[in-house]
């Protein structure tokens, strides 16, 4: 423990919001004897404690690394603005929650990056830790910085800052990476030598081993691997999820977090293939866990942590093929113990009355569906294989079952969208309202229909990775158009911030030149950009101007089908020609059946040793 930090913390904490976020000490955190530790890893999550502690990846990797003898992995989160100010004023460095030791003393610093708008938080954390921001300015094996997570499928905007990236699922590769580091330390390798060594691990991408060159029009001319670096780095996956380590003895936070419940991951991957959804493509292939494994994990974790709620998570849980046997057993266990069970990401096309009854055994929560688009034509174009009939039928069951609260999520600005599609949303909402009038079991309580629209952000490795994003003004016009047509006091309409989604689009498909922009925005004070309390569009616009970068190049321009893409060195298993085909089908409003109804040939099965998916 660092004496200075121990002396200063109690004086700062009374002045900041939610101080429990900064002290650690939670039930079942891992504390090791430093005399037995040769390698210290700081697992940094570039967002607040409440968000980071809700992240399953963090909990898995924390547990796995701490199982390694001689290695101690600790947690670090981004301090909220008030704490950051206090830390800077007191000269308190960023510290890890378990030991309260400065992050600058750690051997390896790992970032899990799940959201583009958390990039500046990485810089805040490095700076608070007193670590040089740029990879090229850090010498030797001390403070080796690597990153993984959903955003790192396009690692380029972070290439200036991160030494290497770990792509895909980290259960196995993280152990290999840490061991590679320990070996390098023992052998006294230089950082350069270590990066070549670690780059041999499948799934590891070292950006400094690639040169990016540009055409006069600003598009990428070529990505050149240097000195024998592989042309493409393929993401890692876990072959058998039933054998994979799972956090059944989790850390139990001492303050409320966003997902304050047991998280049971029923499968990885999604059978659907919605054309806008990055996770739907990059988490492939679909791998369900066995219901027996899941039941054991659930009971073990619930008894260990004492949670009174469990959520069955995945990208689309109602598509989990053993949902019925699993929920049958779990409902019985949970109902007897007043444990609430929730199934998020329900789909309107396979929602059943039975499942609904099971879910409301302990507590009735709200119903949320994401039709994503207002007309069948557009739903087909985005491959959201849900029909209006599905949605209305589901609502009918729910209203008849006593629900009077429905949330509906849509996107605006989708490729091929017209005003007719926008108005289709209003039309669908009214049909849902009328369904309530016709079928509600109790009309006295009224109904609340919450409608939310998000601004479509084209993402790498999706069928829409080449598509332009519409102008924020145009998005807002469509929002207003929809609002004018949602005139019902039972309907509440919210839309996402246009400016935030615009910057998300810039960063999501950004190249290496964006590193300078992220840094310039951060130097101007941008931080915690995903939080409305802090998001400051003007700082980003000034940073883009300062770096001479036109944001429309990454947003409204649209990318050429033959253009070299910044993320072309990465292979997520899904092939580019498949994505191109998906795009073509979108323009023909042609659906692609889900994986269970026929293999669309995306290529992700190639990641499996057996070569065959089990959707």
């Amino acid at each position: 423990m660092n004496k200075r930090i121990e002396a200063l913390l109690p004086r700062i904490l009374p002045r900041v919001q939610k101080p429990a976020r900064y002290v650690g000490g939670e039930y079942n955190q891992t504390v090791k004897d430093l005399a037995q530790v040769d390698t210290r890893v700081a697992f940094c999550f570039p967002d607040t404690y409440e968000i980071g502690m809700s992240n399953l990846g963090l909990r898995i990797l924390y547990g796995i690394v701490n199982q390694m003898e001689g290695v101690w992995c600790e947690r670090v989160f981004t301090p909220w603005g008030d704490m950051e100010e206090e830390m800077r004023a007191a000269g308190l460095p960023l510290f890890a929650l378990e030991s309260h030791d400065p992050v600058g003393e750690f051997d390896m610093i790992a970032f899990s990056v799940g959201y583009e708008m958390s990039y500046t938080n990485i810089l805040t954390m490095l700076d608070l830790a007193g670590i040089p921001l740029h990879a090229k300015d850090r010498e030797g094996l001390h403070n080796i910085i690597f990153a993984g997570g959903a955003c790192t499928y396009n690692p380029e905007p972070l290439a200036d800052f991160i030494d290497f990236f770990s792509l895909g699922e980290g259960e196995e590769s993280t152990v290999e990476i840490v061991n590679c580091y320990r070996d390098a330390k023992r052998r006294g390798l230089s950082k350069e030598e270590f990066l070549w060594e670690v780059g041999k691990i499948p799934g590891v991408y070292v950006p400094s081993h690639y040169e990016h060159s540009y055409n006069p029009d600003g598009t990428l001319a070529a990505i050149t691997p240097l000195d024998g670096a592989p042309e493409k780095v393929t993401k890692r996956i876990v072959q058998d999820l039933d054998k994979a380590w799972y956090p059944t003895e989790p850390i139990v936070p001492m303050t409320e977090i966003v997902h304050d419940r047991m998280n049971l991951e029923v499968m990885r991957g999604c059978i659907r293939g919605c054309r806008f959804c990055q996770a739907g493509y990059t988490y492939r292939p679909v791998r369900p866990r066995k219901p027996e494994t899941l039941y054991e994990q659930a009971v073990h974790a619930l008894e260990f942590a004492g949670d009174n709620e469990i959520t069955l998570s995945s990208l689309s849980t109602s598509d989990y093929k053993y949902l019925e046997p699993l929920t049958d057993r779990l409902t019985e266990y949970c109902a007897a113990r007043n444990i609430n069970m929730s199934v998020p990401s329900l789909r309107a096309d396979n929602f059943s009355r039975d499942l609904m009854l099971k879910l409301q055994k302990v507590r009735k929560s709200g119903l949320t569906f994401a039709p994503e688009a207002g007309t069948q034509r557009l739903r087909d174009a985005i491959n959201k294989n849900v029909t209006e009939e599905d949605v209305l039928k589901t609502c009918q069951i729910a209203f008849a079952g006593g629900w009077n609260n429905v949330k509906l999520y849509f996107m605006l600005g989708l490729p091929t969208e017209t005003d007719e599609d926008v108005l289709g949303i209003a039309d669908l909402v009214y049909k849902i309202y009328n369904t309530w009038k016709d079928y509600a079991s109790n009309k006295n309580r009224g109904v609340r229909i919450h409608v939310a629209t998000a601004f479509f952000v084209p993402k790498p490795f999706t069928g829409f990775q080449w598509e332009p994003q519409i102008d924020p003004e145009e998005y807002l016009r469509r929002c207003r158009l929809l609002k004018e047509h949602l005139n019902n006091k039972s309907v509440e309409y919210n839309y996402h911030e246009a400016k935030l989604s615009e910057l998300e689009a810039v960063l999501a498909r950004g190249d290496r030149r964006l590193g300078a922009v992220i840094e310039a925005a951060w130097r101007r004070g941008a931080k915690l950009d995903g939080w409305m309390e802090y998001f400051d569009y003007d700082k980003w616009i000034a940073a883009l101007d300062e770096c001479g970068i036109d944001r429309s190049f990454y947003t409204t321009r649209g990318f050429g089908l033959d253009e070299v893409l910044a993320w072309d060195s990465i292979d997520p298993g899904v092939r580019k020609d498949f994505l191109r085909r998906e795009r073509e089908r979108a323009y023909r409003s042609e659906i692609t059946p889900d994986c269970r109804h026929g293999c669309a040939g995306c290529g992700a099965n190639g990641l499996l040793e057996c070569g065959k998916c089990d959707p």
Partner: protein
Amino acid sequence: MSRLLFIKEGVAVWSSHLDLMRALMRSFRRAGIDLKHSQGFTPHPELSILMPLSVGVESQCEIAEFSLAEGCDVPVGEIAVRMAPVLPAGIRALESYEDGQKTGKLAWLRARLELTYDGSGVGETDSSAPLRSAQNDRIEALRTLFARPSLTVQKHSKKGDVEMDIAPMIREIQVGTGTACPPSAVVLEAVVAAQNPTLNPLLLVTAMEKYLPECKPDHVVCRRLEIYDAEMNVFR
């Protein structure tokens, strides 16, 4: 209703009242002790904490009140023992029992405030003669202050800031030096109203800041020591 007497200190002091409630609920479950749940739309375990504690304040006399579920046959006296190994750091179960005094009987609480005068708390020496003399001056000033018949302070409440005279809510107060604290520290030990209305002992510091700004401490550690009924018998 049964009760659990426990300590809250260390890292746990930074958890809020609601956080502590959640932590206790989970701890009961971990210990395999089923609590009775309310009926209705969202069933809640019957569990409450008698006197919510401010964030940052330690206590060695916290009481949680709970009802066991039907069929839960753990002897009440054993509950504290069962919970001990599954409680989070900083929470220590002392005793569990039935037939506690009625909550309405709770009248007074004793708290200890350790006021430190050492700048930022880092690197400065804290044992020189001038500090000693400053300490004596402060003790005198504070004794005079708390002898006043009236001490009004601003209290933050849900309805906004309210003026409150805290003098009548102080039953006794001692100002002196502590044994195990830095030489410049001043220790207040006070018995104050525990309910109707409650006096948060930290308001004693607020009063100091208002009336004796030169005595504003650099750091305060507050600990609840004991609670009593109207006759100053220990409340359980």
